[in-house]
């Protein structure tokens, strides 16, 4: 009892802190980092529902991310439909796509499911490149001018600063985590986990496997498409590799694996590790840091080489992280922390 009250208090404090940040922090860069963090948590958490809880490891989530991003952007660019209306169209379309994919892929298990999910995402990516009249092909869609958001004639925000994006992102993160919490603590969540642990046993207990797998997929896909739409609107640009590429699918999955699959806070933890690290590499902070400590001379050959190249290779870090996590903490950071905690408890006894 006390523990759950404590938990609620901590979460409320955290939330009010996050709500207050834009009042005190004016640096657009800091807000940008927070928005990236929100986006990452959303992506990871959406995958978590299907991959972590229901145990269906899709490596094709870029499909839903891309469909959401593209639908919203296309409607805004060609039909001047405001993104907060376009988002709904994106989600509706994603439900159709997800059910189509589900009906194909859920007949397959294990590695075959993984391969099929990749194939579907690749078909969508290649279609986006080839359907030039609809998607503008490889050039992508650029639409940076957002209409002002009005309620009853008064302008709520005109999207000129990063603050509105910050609050939208925060809202979406709370929504995604909330939905995951509800799923985890409902009958639905237990069904998902039963399917994950033993499909055949779950089936023999009367759980309709393909029905619940599809439910998990739809929830996961809709939330992923929401993240995709938010990404599109925030960045103002989508093209096939950045929203539909295999890299996107892998990245979505990584957030969860590194944090810990099938746990509520795993994707948050994963994002807290991944986002700052990759940003530090991208913006050359690590090279500058090495120079400052005096490990590397800025004008030496190595220094110049690092400055030139390290920023391009932030994906290298992803690779190393995955290998380390899989080999040494296969249950992710959350699993690792729990393990440490139980070990400490045992030692105390």
């Amino acid at each position, binding site marked *: 009892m006390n523990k759950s009250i404590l938990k609620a208090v901590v979460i409320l404090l955290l939330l009010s802190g996050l709500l207050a940040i834009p009042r005190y922090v004016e640096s657009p860069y800091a807000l940008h980092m927070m928005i990236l963090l929100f986006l990452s948590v959303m992506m990871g958490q959406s995958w978590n529902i299907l*991959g972590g809880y229901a145990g269906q490891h899709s490596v094709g989530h870029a499909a839903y991310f891309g469909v959401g991003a593209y639908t919203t952007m296309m409607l805004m660019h060609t039909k001047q439909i405001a993104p907060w209306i376009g988002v709904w169209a994106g989600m509706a379309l994603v439900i159709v796509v997800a059910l189509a994919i589900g009906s194909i892929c859920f*007949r397959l298990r294990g*590695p075959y499911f993984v391969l099929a999910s*990749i194939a*579907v995402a*690749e*078909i969508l990516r*290649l279609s986006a490149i*080839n359907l030039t009249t609809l998607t503008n092909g490889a050039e992508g869609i650029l639409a940076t001018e957002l209409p002002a958001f009005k309620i009853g004639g008064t302008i709520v925000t005109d999207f000129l600063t990063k603050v509105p994006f910050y609050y939208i992102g925060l809202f979406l993160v709370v929504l995604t985590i909330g939905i995951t919490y509800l799923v985890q603590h409902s009958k639905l969540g237990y069904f998902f986990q039963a399917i994950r642990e033993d499909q055949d046993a779950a089936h023999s207990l009367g759980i309709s496997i393909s029905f619940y797998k599809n439910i998990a997929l739809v929830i996961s896909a809709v939330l992923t498409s929401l993240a995709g739409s938010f990404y599109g609107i925030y960045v103002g640009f989508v093209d096939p590799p950045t929203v539909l590429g295999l890299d996107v699918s892998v990245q979505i999955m990584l957030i969860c694996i590194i944090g810990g699959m099938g746990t509520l806070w795993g994707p948050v933890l994963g994002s807290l590790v991944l986002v700052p690290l990759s940003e530090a590499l991208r913006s050359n902070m690590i090279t500058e840091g090495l120079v400052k400590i005096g490990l590397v001379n800025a004008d030496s050959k190595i220094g110049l080489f690092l400055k030139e190249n390290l920023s391009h290779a932030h994906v290298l870090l992803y690779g190393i992280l995955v290998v380390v996590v*899989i080999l040494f903490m296969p249950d992710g950071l959350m699993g690792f922390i729990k393990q440490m905690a139980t070990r400490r408890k045992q030692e105390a006894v």
Partner: protein
Amino acid sequence: MAVFMQSLISGILIGGVYALIGIGLTLIFGVMRVINFAHGDILMVGMYLTYIIFTMLGIDPFVSVLITFPLMFLFGGFLQKVFINRVLNALAQNQILLTIGLGLIMSNTVMLIFTSDYKILTTSYSSASIQVGGGVSVSTPLLISFLITAAITAALYWFLLKTDTGQAIRATAQDRDAAQLMGINVKRMSIIAFGLGSALAGTAGALISPTYYIFPQVGGVFTLKAFVITVLGGMGSVVGATLGGILIGITESMSAVYISSGWKDVVVFVLFLLVLLFKPSGLMGKSRT
């Protein structure tokens, strides 16, 4: 008719290289039940190796296969011993992620060293072709690479069927535990299988380097193609992978001619999904219970 023959022949020729890639993947899967998502990246390493040997030592890519093959074998053996071996009994998704991670490390390390610029390896015969008659011509580098592929495949069949080690590898693929009980060193067989798989992928990379752009991200396309080929042929079946490779080569070149080159990969993936749905065991695979 000439167009049809032309695309059929170039399909078969490129299919030979695809077969090599597919055989490598299917060997690894057969022996270890691990799907190697780094397969295309290993091929990419083979391409760069060939490129280095060509620019620094001036050795022709088709000759340098003799150097690339053993080097890539060692590389693959190293990957198996240090990384893959530790996850043989882990969950399937962890194995997949590990190989994805290894692939990312390979492509990004290569990018750090060579930058992401496209490299072209130009030989005297890169754009040469031979007239066969009836308006059909055959690209010389593709023809040579097909012949080398055929030779390597034949040697591989002989190795797997006739030698003791080959038989031990096949036994391990059939039933790992039973093979171990029969006194086969399954760990060694795994290293050899991964080494062979990598060597085949690396060789395929060497063989296509005179006709393809060389860049760090080239592997992704080939990883996906390798999956399609092996699933089409039946996971773990070497004969299936050979057939699958040729079939995919023909499908690609036919759909490039009769549909459009932009959509040819989509046709391949749709075919892949159809196979997964209606005959998941593949052309040559035994149905699983």
